[in-house]
């Protein structure tokens, strides 16, 4: 039936959108690590991939939006779903912006901070990786969403703690750095942290949406 064909197409696009976000944050993680280890060529490749994934996510989101309206699917939940997709798109946008900032501003990062920054990126990416299954669950088993999003909150908190630790270290234990460098480092820590904040926003939205959908 045509109506189910359209529905299946929309489902496929939604899945593809989630996959794109997932890949996006993995590339982000790789990009940060390559920058910290000075692999310029690999980092440039990461930036190119990231830009492509971000553009893909945007166009997929727009396609979903169009399809939902043109086939008048889910009129009651459409608003919520589109907001969810926008918030998720925001994650990949933030990740892309961060990588580009590394490229543009070329922050001078002391090697002793590498490990901490990689760990922070790991936490942020984990928080996003945990929110994606929760978003998928919203569409099929909304009652299980709550069981999945607590991980997001955990990783977000860990990321917060790590970021604070890094900032503390930069300002208190690294007298050799200039104040401008310290402030620069603080911003970059903040930039990475925003990825997990976006994931937390999605989790908040999902928890409300799941309650609305639980019958």
């Amino acid at each position, binding site marked *: 039936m045509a*109506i*189910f064909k359209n*529905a*299946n197409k*929309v*489902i496929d696009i*939604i899945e593809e959108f989630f996959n794109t976000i997932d890949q996006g944050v993995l590339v982000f993680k790789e990009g940060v690590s390559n920058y910290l280890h000075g692999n310029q060529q690999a980092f440039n490749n990461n930036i190119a991939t990231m830009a492509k994934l971000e553009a893909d996510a945007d166009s997929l989101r727009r396609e979903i939006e169009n399809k939902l309206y043109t086939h008048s*699917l*889910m*009129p*009651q*939940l459409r608003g919520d*779903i589109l907001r969810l997709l926008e918030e998720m798109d925001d994650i990949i946008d933030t990740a892309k912006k961060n990588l580009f900032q590394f490229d543009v501003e070329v922050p001078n990062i002391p090697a002793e901070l590498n490990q901490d920054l990689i760990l922070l990126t790991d936490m942020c990416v984990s928080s996003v990786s945990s929110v994606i299954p929760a978003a998928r669950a*919203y*569409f*099929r*088993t909304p*009652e299980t969403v709550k069981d999945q999003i607590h991980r997001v909150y955990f990783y977000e908190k860990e990321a917060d703690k790590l970021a604070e630790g890094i900032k503390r270290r930069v300002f208190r234990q690294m007298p050799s750095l200039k104040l401008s460098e310290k402030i620069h480092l603080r911003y970059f820590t903040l930039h990475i942290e925003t990825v997990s904040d976006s994931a937390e926003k999605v989790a908040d939205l999902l928890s409300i949406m799941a309650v*609305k*959908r639980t*019958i």
Partner: protein
Amino acid sequence: MFFFFLTSGLFLGWSLGANDAANVFGTAVGSKMISFRKAAIIASIFVILGAVIQGSGTTETLSQLGSVDAIAGAFTVALSAGFIIFLMTRYLIPVSTSQAIVGAIIGWNLFTGHKTDFSILSKILLTWVSGPVIGAIFSAVIFILFRKLLRRLKLHLVVLDIYIKWGLIIVGAFGAYSLGANNIANVMGVFMSSAPKVVVDLGLFTLSGPQVLFLLGGIAISVGIITFSRNLMNEVGNGIMALSAEAAIVAVLSQAVVLFVFSSTSISELLIGIGLPPIPLVPVSSSQVIVGSIIGIGMVKGVNEIKFKTIRGIIGGWVLTPVLAGLLSFFALFFMKNLFNLNVGSEVEANEIVVPVAAASEQINETGSYINLFWPAFSLSILALFIFIIIYSYKQQKRRLAAERELLEKEKEYNNARKALTESEIKSIHLENAFLHNELEHKRKELVDYALSIVEQKEFFERIYDNLKSIREENKQDIRDEKIRQLEVEIGQRMSFNDKVDDFNIQIEKMHKEFSSRLSIQFPALSENEKRLAILLRLGISSKEMATLLNISPKSVEINRYRLRKRLGLDKGTNLIQFINNI
């Protein structure tokens, strides 16, 4: 005259449609799952079907409560009920037509002195109470099963949404059918004793007198749905409880089942057949049942979601409705009788036993004058079909044209884009051609230069050869020395390469014209020599080579480089070549 008096019944039907259709399609329309137009069409068709096919059972019960035996009385009773409903609908209170009509009939009983049959009344009141309770139980059970099913199926939200939409349509149609079957008694019950004794043949089926009334009542309800139910649909859909679409299906289904059960003679007979007590066929308030159903769902989910304030308001309306309708009916009958001198019903003494004039079911079977409406009905249907086809094809045509226009515009856009692309391609090919032409010219010039230089070199060497020869042959020492000195000068001049270096500089400046102009804009204080140095640095030429090209010592090149750095304002850490490359 009969049709004039029937208008109050039709008005009541209209009120019922305006009011009760919201119970069936309220959530579906309120949540925008189904458009109001679609809902109104489906509800109208199924209400008429329910009324005509299954409307007799409940009508009989209502006739037993008070058989209004004069058409003017029936008119007044229906008018009073209709007016009260209209009034309450105006204030967006979902009222019950059943209660209004029962109140009005009791008003008639009181006015004419007929005895109200309390056993029937208690039966009716009991169903009013049991209806919502059964609705609650049904909906709770259906809801639990439905939830289990959904959890097991794990459908994707998009697919589930499609199922729900169709579910709402099917359940809504069933609800409308049950509403027509159960509530037509409220609309046409009081007119039963005045029903025309006719049999109307419509070709495919025949309608008895009461069924003609049911059909008219059904049509009146449909008109009510189409013209006046939109606001209330949104009120019910969004007011009582924030119903999810899944819960709405359950609520409407349970309401439809309750209304169906309370109006189905076949189920009642089936129960009698297996030795169980029959189901009382009573018009139940669909509003009461739907609220019961919603409470049932609320109890399964946890009662927090029910807006008790709205429910209290509705219950208040229910108490108010029969009382107001009864009072209005009583006074209206008084006016009708005394002011217009109309016969509103046979008056009896309080202790007289009244035998109902005629039960509706008996009337349905009774044959009266035969009216053959086959051809009118047939031609009307053909006409309707014809109009439908015209409208449909017109709409299709319009849609097709719109789609074609859109396609055309897209094609135009595509062509424009292609044209722009082609133009830019042509432009780039032109540029490339110009570049290649320049290159060719340059090569040709190089070749000519090379040839000239070979000729010139040949001449030079020939000259030296001749000079050397003449020096060797010269015997005089002083002339010999003079010739050697001249030769030395000639060779020295040749070694300065000045012309070549100038040529090289001109060529380089030509090739790096853009860079040179950028440099002049950004650093206007740079001298020509400094610019040249910058260009050579950009080309990646070493200091030693530069010294040769600029005809200065390598040490001077280093000094020039240092000056250039200062002029460009570079600090110690910045790489000069990288900086120049980035300009």
